[in-house]
């Protein structure tokens, strides 16, 4: 096979998955995400499920909180795997599965829009996305990546169902959608806007005009066959979409019922917490690099071509619109559009996930651009694109250590855990100051409980919700609001049985000293100091109306995991029918037509 011929064929999906394994497998097995912002948080949640599968009430943070405030699927899978490989490696395995599912999802999603060859390039490019590396290794957003990968795999089933009325696509689409929701609800909610609406739009286009004349000459755009009529035309599409949405909606309502109940009981009313992804990137170079340059990487060079490619073919315009909207959302506070559309939710959401989605929505278009480049420049284009891909993921990995947002250097928290677990110290509560995401690691392995926690949505203590700052351990980064929150908590130390403070940042020492706390121990060559207050009584249970009922625990422990098994079962039981591609025949002159 010549070089030109090899470029003219789609890359096998299996090979792309192997590339994903080769690129991300070693990084994950080296536990690179261990230092990310959220990894310890996910492991902490998983550790609770590992020991209390049917009891989502976790007393280790916020003097008690409900884990039904966060969809459980990824954590429960880690908890399951932890029985074999431990919590940390369980996390890495679940993340690796998500990373390997992503190019599969991109490939299948891209095939809605472009031909198989372009879709394969899209899938390959998705392995090297800066935004993916950013979310996996810097942010530790396991649930977002997993849910997005699942959702991308669900959308082709949706498209098949609404355009062909395929029952097996309906079943699999519903099951995978439920699974995606069980992994991360926010992804599914916004996925409807950014991903599902363009799919519906293109399905309506297909129903109206099976072969879009304007696109018929475009070799990269998927063109339906003349015979592929959409049953029931536009009305049929809308009816089937409605049925799909209804069943998925009802299922999500049931699978995540304890989550919805917890939201109804305690709507998010806490003061907004600042996040740099909401700022104007043009006014802060560091933010711009972190949330724009690194996630897009070399894709930025391709955006003009992506726009042109998306605008040229009528069938690609819904996708282009989805990409543009996600792109604008990913800019956070650089434009007012997210604030206008989201209202108060703007102050709750973080926006790096929208950039991730924008890059994924760009992939089919990028695949089409890649086809054009390879057809025209062959090896030169392949080399340039390979270089761009490696540079993009490389830059994201380099930025892990270069960015000013990086978590503080990992410290040895084992002495803190040992201190809390001995001499009855776990009968009191504790907080850490300056330990960042290591707080979750301490919480995972100690029996003692804390009034702090690395999770904003479940906080109900007024000392935390009234001030507009996040974790107490990071109080100083939230300025006066953060310090006021910490101060309020320390003022009420006796109320909560808060006796021990572990300090990894001397910034907090003056406050502790003036408030009457005394240094009692030093760990890890002075890296961490333990402070105590003498007149604090032992911690007692803080009653809360947020505690889920036992039946909610049973539901939470069975349905999310159940739908994921259902999805796996359906994928195996109802394998995708491979489209038989008609051989491209050479036109021949028929001398004697067959007459029946």
């Amino acid at each position, binding site marked *: 096979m010549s070089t030109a011929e090899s470029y003219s064929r789609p890359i096998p999906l299996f090979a792309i998955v192997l590339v994903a394994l080769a690129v991300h497998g070693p990084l994950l097995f080296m536990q690179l995400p261990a230092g990310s912002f959220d990894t310890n948080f996910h492991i902490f949640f998983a550790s609770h499920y590992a020991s209390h599968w049917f009891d989502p009430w976790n007393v280790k943070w916020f003097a008690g909180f409900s884990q039904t405030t966060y969809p459980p699927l990824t954590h429960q899978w880690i908890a399951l795997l932890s029985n074999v490989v431990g919590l940390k490696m369980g996390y890495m395995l679940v993340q690796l599965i998500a990373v390997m599912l992503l190019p599969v999802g991109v490939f299948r999603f891209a095939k809605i829009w472009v031909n198989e060859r372009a879709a394969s390039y899209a899938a390959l490019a998705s392995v090297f996305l800066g935004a993916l590396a950013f979310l996996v290794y810097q942010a530790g957003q396991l649930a977002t990546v997993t849910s997005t990968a699942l959702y991308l795999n669900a959308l082709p089933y949706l498209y098949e169902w609404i355009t062909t009325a395929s029952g097996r696509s309906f079943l699999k689409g519903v099951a995978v959608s439920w699974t995606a929701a069980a992994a991360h609800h926010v992804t599914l909610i916004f996925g409807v806007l950014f991903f599902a609406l363009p799919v519906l739009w293109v399905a309506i286009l297909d129903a109206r005009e099976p072969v879009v004349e304007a696109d018929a000459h475009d070799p990269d755009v998927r063109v339906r066959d003349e015979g592929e009529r959409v049953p029931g035309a536009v009305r049929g599409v809308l009816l089937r979409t409605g049925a799909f949405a209804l069943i998925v909606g009802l299922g999500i309502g049931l699978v995540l019922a304890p989550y919805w109940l917890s939201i109804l009981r305690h709507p998010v009313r806490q003061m907004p917490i*600042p996040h740099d992804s909401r700022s104007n990137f*043009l006014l802060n170079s560091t933010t711009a690099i972190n949330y724009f340059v690194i996630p897009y990487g070399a894709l930025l060079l391709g955006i003009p071509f992506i726009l042109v490619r998306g605008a040229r073919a009528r069938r690609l315009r819904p996708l282009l619109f989805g990409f543009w909207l996600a792109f604008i959302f990913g800019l956070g506070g650089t434009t007012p559009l997210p604030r206008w559309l989201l209202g108060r939710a703007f102050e709750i959401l973080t926006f790096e996930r929208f950039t991730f989605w924008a890059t994924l929505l760009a992939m089919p278009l990028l695949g089409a651009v890649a086809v054009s480049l390879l057809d025209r420049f062959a090896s030169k284009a392949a080399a340039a694109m390979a270089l761009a891909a490696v540079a993009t993921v490389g830059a994201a990995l380099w930025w892990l250590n270069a960015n000013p947002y990086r978590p503080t250097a990992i410290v040895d928290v084992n002495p803190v855990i040992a201190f809390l677990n001995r001499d009855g110290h776990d009968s009191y509560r504790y907080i850490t100051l300056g330990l960042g995401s290591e707080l979750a690691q301490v919480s995972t392995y100690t029996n003692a409980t804390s009034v702090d926690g690395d999770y904003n949505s479940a906080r109900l203590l007024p000392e935390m919700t009234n001030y507009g700052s996040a974790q107490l351990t990071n109080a100083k980064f939230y300025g006066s609001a953060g310090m006021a929150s910490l101060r309020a908590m320390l003022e009420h130390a006796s109320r909560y049985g808060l006796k021990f403070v572990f300090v990894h940042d001397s910034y907090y020492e003056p406050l502790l000293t003036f408030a009457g706390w005394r240094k009692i121990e030093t760990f890890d060559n002075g890296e961490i100091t333990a402070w105590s207050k003498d007149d604090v009584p032992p911690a007692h249970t803080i009653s809360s109306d947020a505690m889920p009922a036992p039946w909610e625990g049973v539901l939470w422990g069975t349905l999310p995991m159940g739908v994921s098994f259902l999805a796996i079962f359906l994928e195996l039981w109802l394998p995708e029918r491979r489209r038989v591609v008609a051989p491209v025949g050479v036109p021949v002159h028929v001398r004697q037509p067959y007459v029946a």
Partner: protein
Amino acid sequence: MKTILTIIVVATVVLVAVGLLGAGQTKSGTIGFANGSALPGLTPKADTPEQAVTNLLNDVQKRRWDAAYGALSKTSGVDEETFREEWQGSNGSLRTFSNLEGSELRPVHATNDDAQIRARLRWTTPVGPIEDVRDFRLIREGGLWKVVWPKQQVANVPAQVVPVTYLRWDLVSGDGKDEWGARNIDPPHVRIVSMNAVNSAEGSAVMGEVVNEDTVPAFVNVGATLVDGGGNPIDDENSFDKIDHVLLPKQITPYRIDFPGIDLSKVKNVRMDIKASLVPASADPVIGVMNQKIDADVQGRSVLRGELLNQSGQTVNIPHVIASFYDNNGKVIWVSDGYVDRALLPETSEPFSVDIPRSLAGKVQSFHVVVNQYSLGKS
């Protein structure tokens, strides 16, 4: 195709432009990460005195010292290191722990070539927010306004030997542990000598004084529970940092306990609770309080001013002043506190001031000041 591309590009440009115009409404991110700079051309020129000071403070906030120093007039006569030290602090002072969080500017006077701007600077510090009022003098240089930065006079203390004669109490416990609190020894005898409850701007406050009547040092903490007419507790709080927790023998400290959002009219009774334990302590460093007087600050508020003199040979990194104010009957009518943001070097003095509520300023007949302190490595 062209129409769609045009719509997308124009919509993006318009949205970005609107975003830039409304940038002031967008909440900035976390303070600790405020270190990036705007893209070139997006920082407004210092063509007004207010803009010049705004740019300077913005650079200070983001710790872009070269840019901040570049906003100074050539006539300033201060080198960049000294300028930087004035903003960042030195010797482990409170300022070294502080971040500039915001500011409000008010022009004091302006001509074509000369102006004065008064800035209320809001600092975030480990011990709570601190406000600072600073006047900036500006002159016009080459069409742009520049800040004139005066050279600060630094106290020059001659080299000397300071003899140490202070008292110190150590605790020895049987197993070498439990130094703090010495649980197997009777607590020192401490007593609340006065208590008064008043409504305050934020709610209500209970205040007074505590004395250590024992011959050993005591760690004290005062708590109070407000009780309603039905005997039910409304709220319980403690003195937190508005007290000197470590009392030497016979030493008196003021205390104040704040109850935010609670009106005293709903309170029938106040239950006081004082906890004391034996602790090691020392009388060093000795800090003298000099030249105290009640005065008005630049904003017209009543304040108690004075100077703290470090009479020992050790640096006091963060001095904390707690003052009790008495009416003509000798009753404590308010307790106020304030932190000094410059370190007290040995044998030098630093000014301090603490606020007095406007409604009480006229009733104050006398006052008593105690000084608490934080020294690095001595917690």
